[in-house]
């Protein structure tokens, strides 16, 4: 599902200590040792590298919402210049969100092991790390709750399963007022556009990172009270649905 080109770049330019710090040796290597490890990278003498600073340092820290809005807006503007059509634009925003999902998943797991009170719903014995979700519903609860709280400071507003017998693989996560869309008004001729496709990409990254092949898209479902209400449609692939049946029979939760 995630072809290499999709996040190849993100792995090299890493906001990516998330991928490594968890299993890094505890011994602090000297600068020389560090440079031996990665001969190409220079590090400051005061050792302000990602390996010297705690990964939880930024936990619960906040930044200006305006800064996010300006960066996100510029991401949209930049993407818009390189695409034709709304679907293309949403696809690009989705792709930009995807690597965040992979990283945030690791971050969620890492933090749930490093603190006593696990925010995750997974069952964990005192010493073993929390299991990654095996079943769809566990995964979706992880997204609806902990992921949403990490990103937006609150849980999502609803989680539903498709009622249609034709689409048992479809689930809906609803956000009444997506933070990423707060300041955005799409022009009339693009009324179908939903820039929360970026968040859909994040969800897709989380699912993929857990081994759930998924397509996620963001759809406008405004109500009078919630004009920017958005439904994230999560569609699991056939392989996931088949595995789900096997796990069901095996009684694994």
């Amino acid at each position, binding site marked *: 599902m995630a072809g290499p080109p999709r996040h190849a770049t993100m792995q090299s330019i890493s906001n990516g*200590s998330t991928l490594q710090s968890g299993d890094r040796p505890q011994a602090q290597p000297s600068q020389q040792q560090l440079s031996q490890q990665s001969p190409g*990278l220079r590090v400051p*003498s005061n050792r302000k590298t990602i390996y010297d600073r705690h990964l939880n340092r930024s936990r619960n820290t906040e930044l*200006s919402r305006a800064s*996010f809005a300006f960066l996100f807006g510029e991401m949209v503007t930049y993407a818009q210049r390189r695409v034709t059509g709304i679907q293309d634009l949403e696809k690009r925003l989705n792709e*930009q969100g995807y690597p*965040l999902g992979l990283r945030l998943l690791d971050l969620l797991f890492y933090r749930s092991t490093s603190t006593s009170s696990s925010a995750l719903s997974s069952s964990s014995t005192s010493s073993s790390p929390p299991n990654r979700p095996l079943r769809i519903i566990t995964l979706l609860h992880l997204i609806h709750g902990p992921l949403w709280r990490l990103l*937006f400071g609150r849980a999502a507003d609803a989680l539903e399963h498709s009622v249609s017998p034709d689409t048992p693989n479809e689930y809906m996560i609803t956000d009444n007022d997506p933070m990423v869309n707060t300041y955005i008004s799409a022009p009339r001729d693009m009324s179908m556009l939903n820039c929360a496709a970026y968040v859909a990409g994040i969800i897709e990254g989380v699912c993929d990172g857990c081994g759930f092949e998924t397509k996620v898209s963001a759809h406008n479902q405004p109500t009078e009270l919630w004009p920017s209400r958005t439904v994230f449609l999560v569609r699991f692939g056939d392989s996931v649905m088949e595995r789900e049946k096997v796990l069901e029979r095996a009684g694994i939760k």
Partner: protein
Amino acid sequence: MSSTKTTRIGEETRVDKVNAELVTLTYGTIVAQLCQDYDSNYQDVNKQLDKMGYNIGMRLIEDFLAKSGVGRCANFRETADMIAKVGFKIFLNVTPTVTNWTSDNTQFSLIFEDNPLADFVELPDDGRAQDELWFSNILCGVLRGSLEMVQMQIEAHFVSDVLRGDDTTEMRVSLVRYIEDEMPPEEE
């Protein structure tokens, strides 16, 4: 305006907040996308980041003025103080040090102790990125765009970055000229 008063404005301006990691990761995915789009031609990436920052700056200045309520600065030294203690404080929650003034008061440096945009970042180990990429270059554009909207033409560039292995992260800012179009004529 006194320096302490400027500090107070920076601290007291109400700022709506969001999770810092979302901001950091969003900036990271922007830079990563550019590196991909420009085939790791880092000079082009720097340029594009500066351009994006310029676009942001032209908009961000209105938010800065509307939320902080500050008026026009009397001189460039005051402007520098305002950028560091109010601008960076409300938008990135850091206060870079203003230093290294030239004697004619037209150039200064901003030294960043912390840079949320670069949190958890390691540049690609490809033998070039640490020599060519200015990861936070968008900030130069933001300053250029914002100040142009309040009638100051400036030039800004990074001269060092801890991501490159330097001991400090330093941006150099130079006043090119005041844009007087909007001003009433000085003399008859």
